[in-house]
């Protein structure tokens, strides 16, 4: 028996210029905020951009965007709704606010289902908010979207960076493209992460201080893009 969905994914993705997967070895480092602000920053520059929340068990980009009651359209497939200029897909369109406990096989199935039926159309960029770690979603992405490029997020903590090193090592072993590393929630002037990134042969894309006012900007796009994080990500987007 053949699962026909996989054969359709390349076709669905063929008009997407670049797929950027925002990833990390650990949770809580700011992936979703960076993925969302990166997508918004690219859209502000006039690009056609999609944002796909692949953190199926703990989605949060909808909260960052302040989304209320938007649904995909059904037209011989699924057309994502447009939110703040982004084509936006998330499992929350289907699960709502309910907890969705998924095992690995379910994560794979949901990912393959959505990739095979979502009609993104022509996009310059599709930004993926990845779940943390090197589990099913990452492995499926590597298997199914070979041209994805990874933007890796860490904090200054050795706990986060050690997991990032494993993630990056895996990606490079598998010949995936890594755009570089962002150091987030930085609380001092240490240059350790920048130096370590250099040792890995990767680009150090940005250092973003801990931004206390960020919490109050969640859900408000304009406020969010005017925070220090938003401004730093705009600078980063200009260089992508």
């Amino acid at each position, binding site marked *: 028996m053949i699962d026909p969905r996989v054969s359709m994914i390349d*076709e669905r993705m063929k008009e997407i210029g670049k797929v950027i997967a925002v990833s990390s070895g650990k949770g809580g480092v700011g992936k979703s905020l960076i993925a969302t602000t990166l997508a918004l920053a690219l859209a502000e520059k006039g690009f056609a951009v999609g944002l796909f929340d692949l953190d199926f068990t703990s989605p949060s980009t909808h909260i960052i965007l302040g989304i209320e009651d938007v649904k995909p359209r059904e037209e011989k*497939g699924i057309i994502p709704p447009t939110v703040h200029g982004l084509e936006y897909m998330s499992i929350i369109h289907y699960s709502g606010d309910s907890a969705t406990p998924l095992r690995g096989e379910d994560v794979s199935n949901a990912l393959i*289902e959505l990739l095979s039926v979502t009609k993104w159309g022509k996009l310059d960029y599709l930004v993926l908010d990845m779940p943390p770690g090197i589990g099913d979603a990452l492995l499926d992405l590597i298997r199914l979207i070979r041209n994805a490029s990874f933007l890796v997020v860490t904090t200054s903590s050795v706990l986060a960076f050690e997991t990032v090193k494993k993630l990056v090592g895996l990606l490079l072993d598998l010949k995936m493209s890594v755009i570089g590393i962002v150091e987030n929630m930085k609380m001092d002037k240490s240059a350790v992460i920048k130096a370590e990134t250099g040792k890995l042969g990767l680009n150090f894309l940005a250092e973003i201080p801990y931004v206390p006012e960020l919490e109050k900007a969640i859900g408000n796009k304009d406020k969010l893009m005017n925070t220090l994080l938003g401004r730093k990500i705009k600078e980063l987007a200009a260089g992508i």
Partner: protein
Amino acid sequence: MHEWALIEAVLAAASEAAEKEGLRQVSEVSLKVGELQGVDLEVLAFAFEQLSSGKFKKAVLKMETVKAEFRCRVCGHRWIFGRENLDEDTAEAVHFVPEVAHAFIKCPKCGSPDFEVVEGRGVWLTSIKGEK
């Protein structure tokens, strides 16, 4: 309709299979259709008729439905899923992304959402027949 997207995927996979087997013409495409998604068989058939071209132009679509069976990973209880127990919004959500069943359905015996779909999820291409 979502069914069109599924048939597009079936035709893409069947084309790859026909290519591999060196078939010039395909006479029959067989599918197993799980009941979990509540896929409309008539729409599938219509979409197949409309979308099949080239070596699939004369192909007949055969479909076999498979009941959706769940097994609770906590207590081991097995049960057959019935869409009629779901409200319209939930049925639609499960239609598009069957995994959201874990958000809305619980084991009728112990109440756990930790169950596996033993069979009856999705659409599967089971065989193609044709001339070499």
